[in-house]
């Protein structure tokens, strides 16, 4: 589906954790448009979206020593901080209506009316990529073959030389785990 080549790689995660400032600039370049758009859609106000964008990167940099590149990818970590900041901003307003509206915006809606993916869907995709990493192998491999190469469980079974039943139950358990990660991520609202 997409190019296998990545612009983001783990070296950014590690450099960020080690306090190398260029990594923060790189994270900003690659993620600020997404983070800003998430905030703008949830808060519906440019000033508030700017505040969230700034707070996310400032907060992330200040707490970089608590970031563990071995256990989370930086994009997913930043998206998590963004969701918290958006929630804080909405709580400050204490407008129930805003909360409801934001909840609407932040549930996974894969595409807008024109069929284009929403910022929220992209953010969820990042969260999910992170959780895919955590599945470990062979689960992560199985799920990537199912998601991105459209292989049936039969084909995956012969490709990876695993029993059919094993592949099936891995798929079911992994899907359930990915789903609950997404739910937890949205549970803050």
């Amino acid at each position, binding site marked *: 589906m997409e190019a296998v080549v990545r612009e983001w790689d783990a*070296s950014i995660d590690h450099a960020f954790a080690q306090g190398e400032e260029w990594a923060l600039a*790189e994270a900003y370049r690659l993620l*600020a*448009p997404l983070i800003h758009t998430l905030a703008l859609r949830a808060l519906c106000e440019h000033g508030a979206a700017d505040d969230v964008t700034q707070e996310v990167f400032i907060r992330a940099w200040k707490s970089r020593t608590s970031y563990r590149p071995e256990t989370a990818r930086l994009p997913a970590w930043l998206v998590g901080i963004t969701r918290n900041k958006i929630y804080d901003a909405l709580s400050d307003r204490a407008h129930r209506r805003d909360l409801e509206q934001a909840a609407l915006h932040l549930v996974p809606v894969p595409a807008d009316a024109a069929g284009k993916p929403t910022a929220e869907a992209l953010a*969820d995709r990042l969260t999910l990529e992170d959780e895919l990493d955590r599945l470990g192998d062979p689960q992560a491999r199985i799920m990537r073959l199912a*998601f991105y190469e459209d292989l049936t469980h039969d084909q995956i079974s012969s490709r990876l030389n695993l029993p059919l039943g094993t592949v099936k139950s891995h798929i079911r358990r992994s899907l359930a785990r990915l789903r609950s990660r997404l739910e937890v991520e949205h549970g803050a609202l």
Partner: protein
Amino acid sequence: MAHCDEDVLALLALGERDTTAAETSHLSGCGECRDLLEGFRRTVAVARVDPAGAELVAPGGHNWTAIHGTLGLAPALAPDPLAADSLAADPMTDDRPDDDPTPLRRSGNLRPAGPPPEDPPRTGSAGRLPRRSPWLLGAAAGILLGAAGAWTAWSVLGQSTPPAAGPAPSTGPAAGDSPTAAVIGEAVLTPLGGHSARGRALVEQLPDGTRQVVVTLPQQQLTGYREVWLGSADLSRMVSLGVLGQGSQAFVVPGGLDLAAYPVLDVSDEPYDGDPAHSLDSLARGKLSLRG
């Protein structure tokens, strides 16, 4: 019928086959199975979100200014990473007029008949639109952005392993895979031309006297491969150190090479054409500041 087999629901969510008549009928009457299937389907849909075509609104330049100021980041990082103008932060071109951005010359071991450096003639900052980054384009124009550039580059075969080759980027004399290596110099690598990734290079000296350069530059979407060079200040002489893989990597500096005479670290995009000369397409470059 009894509840649907959950394994089967997972396969249905993945679209492996259509529901049978019996399943359809059960699902229409059973909220529990329906919810399960829907949850799986939403998850699959998220996993398969195609980033291409997403419309994002880039934050204005004042946001980076505020972050940069609040955190007291290095002055070299002051330009908005999202702005096209930040690409001008090449230490080699700082004192040159804007319309003379590329000091690489076709001499020495540089390809004599190569094409001119990639950019068309520039007409001030509006002409500095980079080739490969719609985000930058959008940021410059202040419009909705298509995210295709960066997002299609996103990991699909996601991996969280550290860089494949070489030591991790060092942060001091005792870092990296060489616990006794001393850092004797470094360079910030800033993007050139239409490229956007930035990184850094550390020069380390090992106990046996060997010098190595540890180059860290995030992976980019390229048609060729990445080659690391040391160049003289005017780039009329270039020495190839080798091929840069993903992430961070160490290169041995030839023992007889005087780094003071080759202070420029350059990473190029090299086509698979067998030509050993520099392609003239530089991805990023920085000037080494040597200690001691």
